[in-house]
């Protein structure tokens, strides 16, 4: 397991360690006085990198969000602070508000579907024999490992209006009518449906594998005792699996929410936010405003709002992580 909580951290301090050989020369004494600095040297490159290349952009995005910063300002290197004008402008823009609501709803449905379906797959894995479980795992790894850009292109092909295999299949099944030449990308809703399907398809494996590993850690006797007492599957899930795995569920919901809220590639590569801007989410909005239209100030304000919304999820998650860091 990567990044397993360690138990040995710091049990061997570098500081103050001496081999105690030779007479103390002045140079040696000076060196040993500087020993406290020793552990800081190796973390220095990482620290500088994080502060300069991550800390500075964070500061910059906040500053720019309070500036009039368009193409003219970029060329002339002018800095004009305009207070919260950018924020007022975008918050008054009905399109931006629609984007925020849409992004939140989209995140909720993706996270909900991912966690519910991931749980079902994990429970299924627990009930399978070794060979079927391996088969299912291989299928999930295929879905999980496919690069996002590739999987987006694959879904465009699957849902192609003329030659797509999905339209052929739905027409063959016939329950939903004739799908010959049906175009999935003409309405925002159906485009979102496909993007949701794509993201959920690739997100289930991680959730399912994690939960399956969690289920394996639950003592089997608990279930056996419950079964003797006449509990059915649902009761056992509600009263044994769910409470024991609650912390794990929490982490998976947090992580999924963080990942799905800021998703860019799948949405953009699918239809560039189309049709008619109906699948523009927050990160696409910032991209279009900033990079396509050089409205850097407004794009920065949108980014800051995005981060603030994200913090609602992030703060409890980081507090949780901190607690595990302490133990």
């Amino acid at each position, binding site marked *: 397991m*990567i*990044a397993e909580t360690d138990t040995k951290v710091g049990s061997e301090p570098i500081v103050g360690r001496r081999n105690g050989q030779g007479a103390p020369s002045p140079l040696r004494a000076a060196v040993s006085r500087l020993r406290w600095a020793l552990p800081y040297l190796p*973390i220095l490159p990482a620290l500088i990198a994080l502060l300069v290349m991550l800390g500075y952009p964070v500061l910059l995005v906040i500053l720019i969000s309070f500036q009039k910063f368009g193409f003219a300002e970029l060329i002339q290197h002018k800095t004009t602070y305009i207070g919260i004008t950018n924020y007022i402008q975008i918050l008054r823009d009905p399109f931006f508000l629609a984007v925020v609501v849409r992004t939140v709803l989209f995140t909720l449905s993706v996270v909900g579907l991912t966690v519910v379906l991931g749980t079902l797959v994990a429970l299924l894995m627990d009930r399978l024999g070794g060979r079927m479980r391996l088969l*299912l795992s291989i*299928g999930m*790894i295929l879905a999980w490992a496919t690069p996002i850009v590739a999987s*987006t292109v694959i879904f465009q092909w699957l849902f192609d209006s003329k030659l797509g295999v999905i339209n052929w299949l739905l027409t063959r099944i016939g329950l939903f009518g004739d799908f010959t030449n049906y175009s999935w990308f003409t309405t925002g809703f159906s485009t979102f449906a496909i993007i949701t399907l794509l993201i959920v398809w690739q997100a289930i494996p991680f959730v399912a594998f994690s939960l399956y590993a969690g289920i394996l850690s639950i003592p089997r006797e608990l279930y056996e005792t419950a079964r003797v007492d006449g509990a059915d599957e649902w009761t056992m899930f509600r009263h044994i699996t769910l409470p024991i795995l609650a912390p794990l569920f929490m982490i998976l919901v947090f992580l999924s929410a963080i990942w799905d809220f800021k998703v860019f590639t799948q949405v953009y590569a699918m239809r560039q936010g189309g049709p008619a801007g109906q699948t523009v989410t927050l990160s696409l909005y*910032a991209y279009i405003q*900033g990079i396509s239209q050089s409205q850097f100030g407004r794009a920065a304000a949108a980014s800051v709002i995005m981060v603030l919304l994200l913090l609602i999820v992030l703060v409890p998650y980081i507090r949780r992580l901190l607690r595990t860091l302490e133990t």
Partner: protein
Amino acid sequence: MRARIARRVAVNLAALVAFVLFAFPVYWMMSTAFKQGSDIQSYTPKFIPWPPTLENFVTAVTRENFGDYARNSLVVTLTTVALALVVGLLAAYAVARARFRGRKGFLLLVVIAQMAPFEALLIPMFLVLRGLHLLNQLPALVITYFIFTLPFTIWSLRGFIAGIPVELEEAAMVDGASRAQAFFKVVLPLLGPGLVATSIFGFITAWNEFLFAYTVMRDNANYTLPVWLVSFQTAFGTDWGGTMAASTLFTLPVLIFFLIIQNRMVGGVTAGAVKG
């Protein structure tokens, strides 16, 4: 007894359906890649690419600049991984083995950096790179991806180092080895699997990244493979054979690497969750 058999059949059937749902899109990509043009254009889909052809792969690879894109992707990815590994290893070793003031603060910084929404930092990072005159140049991507992967690299290596008993280093140092020698002769060899797993993660992140590559690399010849793949699709929207062959080529290295470390991927991100 009958109920139990029925249950087993139902469970296995569900697993089979789930397998098909997960695997089919990937199968469809690969089978389309090997199909004849006429079979792709057919209104009744052909499920097995027979007789197979390499034509689509030839189309994909002989497209203009493909060699450049592949080279760009490889150079950026490998440089990123190497850089993150060196810088990350130094920090991870100090954090795992030494106790110093600010250690917890540093770890907190790493955790937060790992969660940082880089999508929200696109605008300032674009402006910074522009100010450094790095737009449209590969080092811009190396810098960006290095910062993306560094936090995880530190976090992950720290866990692996902590898993190596300190006593081994102590024994080496009692025998007269310096700390540096103990690190290179004792810790580093034992860290092999950890380095592999960590660098594969970095590889996958850098190899797949689209947004920054798309934003920073404006010039056609400087694209990386993900940008090429998306533009390939939009430029030749109807050439599904070529697109799927290109996707297959792009997916293959990731798939191979993923299989090597997949059992480590799961525990990594959620470690400590069950205990919390």
